[in-house]
């Protein structure tokens, strides 16, 4: 089982759309796939028309009184299941910080039994710096970081990369990709071009800012499902192949900027 997580400290950068579309493509490729909507806002659950509710809430899952297995719902698509969001996830930090000796490893521990059932798991994280995000980074094999092509976003990637490099033992691979790219903006063009040439671990495929992606919330389905031949769907497919074809981007990219703080 390979765990992918879409993560960025900022909100509204395309984490959920990426998680939803890449999970759909994984399932369409024949892999048994689970998407865990960890964001209490429940956007991924909404997109799959699944009620953002887990019996017993996040507490039951984290404390183990309910298994993940019990909470999983089938989506409308073959091989793709969803662990829905729940509004109680807003308190997940507190739950994770309970009596456990390794509070940063709790999600990894909960996901371990899923290995027999799924080939790929996608974690759609809420935008935050928290114990939840730290758990996600420890659980994930691949951290997918959507970046809006701005200087500040790039700086955020550096901070994240350095943070991950500081992990003892197992570290996730960090794969950044540009999201919501507006080709008409010169700054977007320059930053995408420069960063891809300067840094390893940055996907060559950008996800453009397109209205068809926004339509996902109207269609309540992945764009890769309802408009599979669209430019957006093709971009997600190219990104998915890229992420899979090069399974070993450098785990700790060389930093060429000033020291980062986390």
């Amino acid at each position, binding site marked *: 089982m390979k765990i992918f997580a879409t993560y960025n400290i900022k909100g509204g950068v395309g984490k959920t759309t990426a998680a939803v579309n890449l999970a759909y493509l994984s399932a369409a490729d024949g892999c048994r796939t689970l998407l865990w909507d960890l964001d209490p806002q429940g956007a991924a659950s909404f997109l799959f028309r699944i009620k953002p509710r887990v019996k017993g809430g996040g507490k039951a899952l984290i404390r183990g009184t309910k298994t993940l297995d019990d*909470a999983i719902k089938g989506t409308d698509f*073959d091989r793709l299941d969803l662990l829905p969001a729940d509004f109680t996830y807003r308190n997940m930090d507190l739950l994770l910080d309970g009596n456990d000796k390794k509070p940063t490893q709790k999600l990894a521990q909960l996901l371990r039994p899923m290995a027999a059932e799924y080939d790929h798991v996608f974690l759609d994280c809420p935008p935050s710096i928290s114990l939840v995000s730290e758990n996600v980074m420890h659980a994930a094999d691949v951290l997918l970081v959507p970046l809006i092509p701005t200087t500040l976003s790039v700086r955020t990637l550096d901070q994240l990369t350095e943070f991950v490099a500081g992990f003892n033992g197992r570290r996730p691979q960090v794969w950044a990709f540009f999201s919501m790219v507006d080709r008409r903006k010169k700054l977007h063009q320059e930053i995408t071009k420069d960063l891809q040439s300067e840094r390893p671990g940055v996907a060559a495929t950008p996800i453009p800012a397109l209205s068809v992606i926004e339509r996902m919330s109207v269609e309540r389905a992945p764009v890769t499902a309802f408009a599979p031949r669209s430019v957006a769907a093709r971009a997600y497919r190219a990104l998915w192949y890229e992420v899979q074809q090069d399974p070993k981007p450098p785990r700790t990219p060389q930093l060429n900027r000033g020291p980062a703080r986390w």
Partner: protein
Amino acid sequence: MTAGGLREFVVDSPAEEDSTLAAVRSALSRAFMVVEEPGAASSGTHRRTWLDTFDWRLYKAGLTLRFEQARRGGRLVLSKADGTPQAEQQVTRWPRRPGLAGDLPDGPVRDRIIVLTSPRALLPIVKAVSTVSVTRLLNADGKTVARLVTEQATVTAPAGSTGADTTAELPPRLAVTEVRGYPGQARRAAGLLAGVPGVSYASQSLFIAALTALGRHPADYSSSVEAEITATMPAPVAVARLLLRLLDTIELNVDGVLRDIDTEFLHDFRVAVRRTRSAIKLLGTVLPADLAGHYAAEFKWLGDVTTPIRDLDVHLLGFDAMTGQLAAASPADLEPLRAFLVRRRAREFRRLAAALRGPRFRAITDDWRKALLEIRDASGPRRRRPTAAALARGTTERAFRRIAARGAAITPDSPPESLHDLRKRAKELRYLLEFFASLHDPVAYRKVVSDLKQLQDCLGEFQDSEVQRHEIHALADAMLAERAAPAATLLAMGEIAAQLAHSQVEARAEFAVRFARFAGPAGQERVRVLLEGRR
């Protein structure tokens, strides 16, 4: 699709199929939005072939094996009778000829079935071409919460080398499948379906329904006698029924013998011939004298014509076990012998095939059946005596006494022929017991057969060891004559012959104990209870 659970239904009247399916849709619309799903993975045309051995070994073990054909290759799926999956494996293609499980590539299905089916081949039992359509059942959010799978299947029973395939259309089958996390919705949909007039729960899996539609039923072949005989039936009728049943077995196996599908077709064929010969010999007194005399000779010919190839089959089937016992020689030393046996078998097979396709065999089966049917169905006044029960009792008692007397006369100095003769008599008794099994008390029957089987195994080991030893010598001579015998092979064959001699000595030593158990006072009492009942 799983077999016959509470979520599978069948349309009762195919003539009203359209209106029933419309009623199904209407019923489901009361609780769900009903939307076709043309692109569903399970929709489209499915080609499946169910496989089993000729004697239904998988079915009898509670298993079902099917080959699901895909655009390229396919997969073998092994499941329990209730549809629970057990194992599956991809295969590039299914061979046109029936094949042995051992010929499959390594995989979990092969591992599960190889011991169970060997040495029998897997035959296509039923083929089904299904058109499957999927309908999504949506809740108020537009989320798929269950699916209705409609399957319309055309099923075919593959013909043998002669005759045409038999085909049947099955009534549409409906199944409600659950979407994970929404079990209540699937239950609700199934409940609605159950209330639609013209729709009922599927009581049979698709496989069994297909067999039924094709006029077959599972395990419809068995090499055992199982003739319909009653105690009060006139003896000639009972014997005719027995012999007709044996003739059926002979004829059912001819196609498999001629297509050389596996060795057991010939084995079952020969057993039925042997039983026929014994029945003619032991029970033929109730048949017209000229009939019994003529067919005794004809079935002897049929037995003789099949002997060489069966002997070679026995050598080849036991070849690996035989080489595994070698201590001094290497298994590779015996490979020239295996090649020689295979060549000789090919030659003998041509002779056998010519005989079974020839007029003499056809005359035996056709005329014999005609004569037996006349006896079975003879109308008008008929002698009531002897009855089947009296015939069974008299012949069984005589056969037992014969064995007891001849066996008691055997001493350590008696020649091997005396044991060979006893083996034949024991086999005759066994056949008599089997012929009239339905007239005996099952417990008493099992006890006598168990003792007899122990004795037969011992006598069989003794004689088979001797026969095989002589055959090894004869094969060595033949290989030398054809210059196909390297020295290492002859030495290895010598080692095998020595082992056979040792087995024969052991069997001989065991004989006295086995015979005493069978024919001693306790054994005699068991036979008496069988024939007369408890006092």
